[in-house]
């Protein structure tokens, strides 16, 4: 049966223009399933790792990439997408693979340093040239005439970080127990949103291409990318004094990797992200990294921020999902009209 399918596959492959090539010439093939905007990052990292793996083992490895919203990717893996490793921007999306499908080890977080998050970022602001609305911190975002653009917390991890960051600021500002003041701040904050796109890049397009809104709130790494893409002069980056620690968790999808016989190369693929070479590469994509040497090199590009963790703000992701983002909970209540 399997051989038959292979024949079909190769016939199909032959039919696909120019794709007959991908019939694996490599010793091993792994599929890296990742969030939507990490294509370039991993397209750059893959050759680095391929070289490293060949030097280390003498084997060639081919790395296939799949990119889409990270929740959607997790869903696909649960339903059978044969991913060997995941590189997500959402802790919950990895966790669900462990909880629901036993696809990822229960203790995946401790398998690699820094909560299995080889790089991280925070939430920052992008404002238009000259910062006409004078935006410097979260408090400035609730002014009457400020229009915000950030992705929908209901559909996007990026949006959830943004919301939690604002929540964290409110806790910081008004005190942990000043629920009323926090809520009124958050309500105004949400009320100032012009467009809720489903994903981060959609929000960027809305802000940049369509000219909607005064402030785009997204990952710091993205904010810098946008400046590089669309012209450094037209926009300014504002990094607030307090913000959130946004982790980018990685894990081996052990069930698939075992089945595919790629456990070793998959594990190494992720571990090598912690190497100095890789960390430098990650930093060049505007992510914050852990390696001290690299950190020192790029210190000027990453201003000091008081980084609150999800633990501190909401008692961890499971609680945040349950008490804030779940249907009818805090977010829904604050958005009600």
């Amino acid at each position, binding site marked *: *049966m399997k051989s038959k399918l292979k024949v079909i596959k190769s016939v199909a492959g032959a039919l*696909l223009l120019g794709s007959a090539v991908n019939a694996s010439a490599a010793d091993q093939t792994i599929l890296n399933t990742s969030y939507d905007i990490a*294509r370039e990052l991993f397209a750059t990292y893959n050759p680095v790792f391929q070289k490293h793996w060949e030097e280390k083992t003498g084997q060639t490895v081919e790395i*296939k990439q*799949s990119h889409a919203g990270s929740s959607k990717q997790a869903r696909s893996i*649960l339903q*059978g*997408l044969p991913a060997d490793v995941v590189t997500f921007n959402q802790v919950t999306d990895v966790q669900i693979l462990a909880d629901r499908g036993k696809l990822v080890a229960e203790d995946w977080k401790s398998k690699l340093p820094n909560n299995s998050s080889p790089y991280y970022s925070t939430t920052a602001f992008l404002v238009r040239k000259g910062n006409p609305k004078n935006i410097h911190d979260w408090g400035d975002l609730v002014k009457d005439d400020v229009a915000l653009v950030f992705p929908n917390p209901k559909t996007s991890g990026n949006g959830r970080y943004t919301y939690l960051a604002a929540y964290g600021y409110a806790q910081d500002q008004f005190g942990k127990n000043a629920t009323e003041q926090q809520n009124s701040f958050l309500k105004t904050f949400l009320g100032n949103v012009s467009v809720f796109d489903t994903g981060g890049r959609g929000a960027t397009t809305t802000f940049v291409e369509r000219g909607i809104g005064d402030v785009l709130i997204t990952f710091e790494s993205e904010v810098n990318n946008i400046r590089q893409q669309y012209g450094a002069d037209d926009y300014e980056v504002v990094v607030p004094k307090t913000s959130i620690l946004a982790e980018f968790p990685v894990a081996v999808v052990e069930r698939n990797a075992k089945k595919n016989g790629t456990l070793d190369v998959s594990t190494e693929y992720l571990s090598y992200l912690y190497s100095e070479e890789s960390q430098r590469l990650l930093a060049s994509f505007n992510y914050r990294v852990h390696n001290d040497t690299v950190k020192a090199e790029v210190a000027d590009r990453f201003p000091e921020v008081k980084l609150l963790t999800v633990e501190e703000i909401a008692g961890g992701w499971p609680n945040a999902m349950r008490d804030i983002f779940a249907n009818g909970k805090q977010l829904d209540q604050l958005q009600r009209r």
Partner: protein
Amino acid sequence: MASGQRHQQRVGDRPAVKYTLIGITLVLTALLLVVPLISIFEQAFVDGLAVYWDSLGDPDTLHAIGLTLFVALLTVPINLFFGVLLAWSVTRFEFPGRKLMMTLMDIPFAVSPVVAGLLYLLLYGNNGWIGEWLYEHDLQLMFAWPGIVMVTVFVTCPFVARELIPLMQQQGREDEEAAVILGASGWQLFRRVTLPNIKWALLYGVILTNARAVGEFGAVSVVSGNIRGETNTLPLHIQLLYEDYQATAAFASASLLALIALITLIFKAFIEWRQERAEQLH
């Protein structure tokens, strides 16, 4: 008697009415259909021809084009075959449940494409009971090309039958009954009597099926897995490019789809022209 000129007194033939209506239609069509089409090409060529060709020459893009055509190549014959049989059964025979069958056939029109994809995922994905079996036997349907073909077949399956049914109903069964009386076998009957009568509608159904198969996004996006260079169809690829700050490349690919659409439409117009000419000659 040339029938074209016979009825001079039809409603709305007064020049004032006629040209007002044509005018309104052309303006609305231009605004609502033509300008969006042009803007796709405008954005595709905004950085010049060289960039355009470059972005189309990208191996991932080429692969996406190939996969898209491959999917259409499989989908169209499947739907053609079953569409004809379905139209034959509901127009040539009376049986209980005939009406229900015709309504069921419209399901893909009523189902949001995303939901359509979800339906397949729930059934054939690892959580479904069939999915379990497939996993055990190492058969990858979802997140591979068979899954993409399956949902595309689902989304496009009404087109052929929907084109054929009204026509075959209108034409009635007399011709075929005559052929049976003259001793034609089933296949001869179909090939020599039915097919010549329905060939244009059939072709139109095929064209629509093809157009939709090539352009399907929602359903495919759910079951594709988005693996670059493997399960990424052109519409998915466009979105990825767009999300990747490669708007020009995205619109270059989009313009390709628009071009396929246009070629399809021109082909269709050509077929209709041929048909009209054939009718005039007879």
